[in-house]
């Protein structure tokens, strides 16, 4: 897997021990999951199993239900039908073990460092541990220089890297990324992809949506292709990009309009 730019210095940092020795919460299993609002079914009968350590890219045209699927998995919205369950031995642990990074991250009106310590405070960490882990995350991704800057005046790319570092500082086992680089220029996109690569190297399980097919090719282990809220394909990336099974996916890869 090649990243866009030369490896940054932080990439050579010692990777943290994967999973922190805690039992895994994975696999994450969706059984016949649907989400409807005002009589309109937006996610329709999804059955998917996400296994440990994989990078799954969700592709599909606008309105296919990609973001909704992430939000359902992350627990931000409840399915109107079907079941979502974490089936690993660590699943009953109370701590939030999965995190999400949004297309437009919401930064609190505080310093970059305070954004990280706040997230750790919400999850019940002691003051000293918050500071240590926040600094660890900033240093890990080369963001120490931004620590005291007000987070909301940072550039879009810096904010997104900070959001990724914030998610990482919570030590999730699984990370949901909703078009994390859709609003960024190629340089910032490269930086985000390097971070995703680093997360993967540490053993994080990643589920990500994107409209950038090049990015999907660079990062995907598996591809989920959604269309009209339905699962059309869930295949290994190589297979998806070389010989898609469905017509819809083939047309999508050729850049044809789907509806």
């Amino acid at each position, binding site marked *: 897997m090649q990243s866009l730019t030369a490896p940054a210095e932080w990439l050579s940092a010692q990777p943290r021990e994967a999973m922190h020795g805690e039992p895994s919460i994975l696999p994450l299993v969706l059984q016949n999951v649907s989400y409807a609002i005002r009589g309109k079914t937006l996610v329709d009968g999804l059955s998917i199993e996400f296994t440990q350590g994989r990078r799954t890219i969700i592709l599909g045209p606008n309105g296919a239900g990609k973001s909704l699927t992430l939000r359902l998995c*992350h627990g*931000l919205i409840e399915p109107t039908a079907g079941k979502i369950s974490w089936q690993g031995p660590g699943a009953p642990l109370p701590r*939030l073990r999965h*995190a*999400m990074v*949004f297309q437009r*991250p*919401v930064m*609190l*009106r*505080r*310093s970059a460092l305070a954004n990280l310590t*706040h*997230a750790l405070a*919400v*999850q019940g960490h002691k003051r000293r541990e918050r500071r240590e882990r926040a600094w660890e995350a900033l240093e890990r991704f080369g963001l120490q220089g931004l620590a005291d800057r*007000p*987070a*909301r*005046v940072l550039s879009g790319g810096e904010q997104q890297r900070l959001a990724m570092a*914030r998610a990482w500082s*919570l030590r999730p086992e699984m990370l949901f990324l909703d078009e994390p680089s859709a609003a960024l220029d190629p340089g910032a996109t490269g930086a985000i992809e390097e971070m995703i690569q680093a997360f993967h190297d540490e053993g994080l399980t990643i589920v990500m949506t994107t409209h950038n097919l090049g990015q999907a090719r660079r990062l995907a282990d598996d591809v989920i292709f959604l269309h009209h809220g339905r699962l059309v394909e869930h295949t290994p990336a190589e297979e998806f990009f070389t010989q898609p099974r469905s017509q819809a996916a083939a047309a999508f890869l050729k850049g044809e309009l789907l509806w």
Partner: protein
Amino acid sequence: MMGQENAFTAAIRLIAELDPTLVEIVLLSLRVSLTAVLLAALLGLPLGTALAIYRFPGRGGVIVTCNALMGLPPVVAGLVVYLLLSRSGPLGPLGILFTPTAMVIAQTLLILPIIISLTRQVMEDLWVEYQEQLRSLGSSTARAIPTLLWDGRFSLITSILAGFGRASAEVGAVMIVGGNIAGYTRTMTTAIALETARGDLALALGLGILLIALTLALNAIAYGTGRMAQRAAA
């Protein structure tokens, strides 16, 4: 005309000489109104935030009531507290009618709806922006209240200032529950009303000038520190 000019110079002289009666009245006014603002803020900021983010049956009614109570006539607030604190009232045994404490209670009641309503408006917008992110970070709705209060701190200064403006400017409530007792419960506004009626325009005018100056100074300080802090924390 001549009399008023004299009153104006006399007023300036009272201020310049730090006339003890004048100073005492100003200090009591500040103590009462600032205490009321502090209490109303301690109650109103979290309540307003909770009202912005919780959904419950009757929420609309609570919002409308708070909005309506922003215009509560001070004399009515005074009357309610008077009835509560009067000798035969439910809180009569406390014996605090015609004390500064009663005035603080009346003013707190008067400005609480203002702080709740203005806070709710600010916080609703902030909540729309933050809700999903905070929930994603694992924040409960209750845990979001301190987060929102801190992040809305610059906007909330305005709602607190509105409360202070209301408290420092009103006559009716402090008049009814304080009784305008010289040297004990006489505030700037009640003194102005009394001295004007008695014809002592110098003291009335001096207090009027100070009241406006204090309000201006407080607003300037709040604006200045707000801007400075905002630049530092965006």
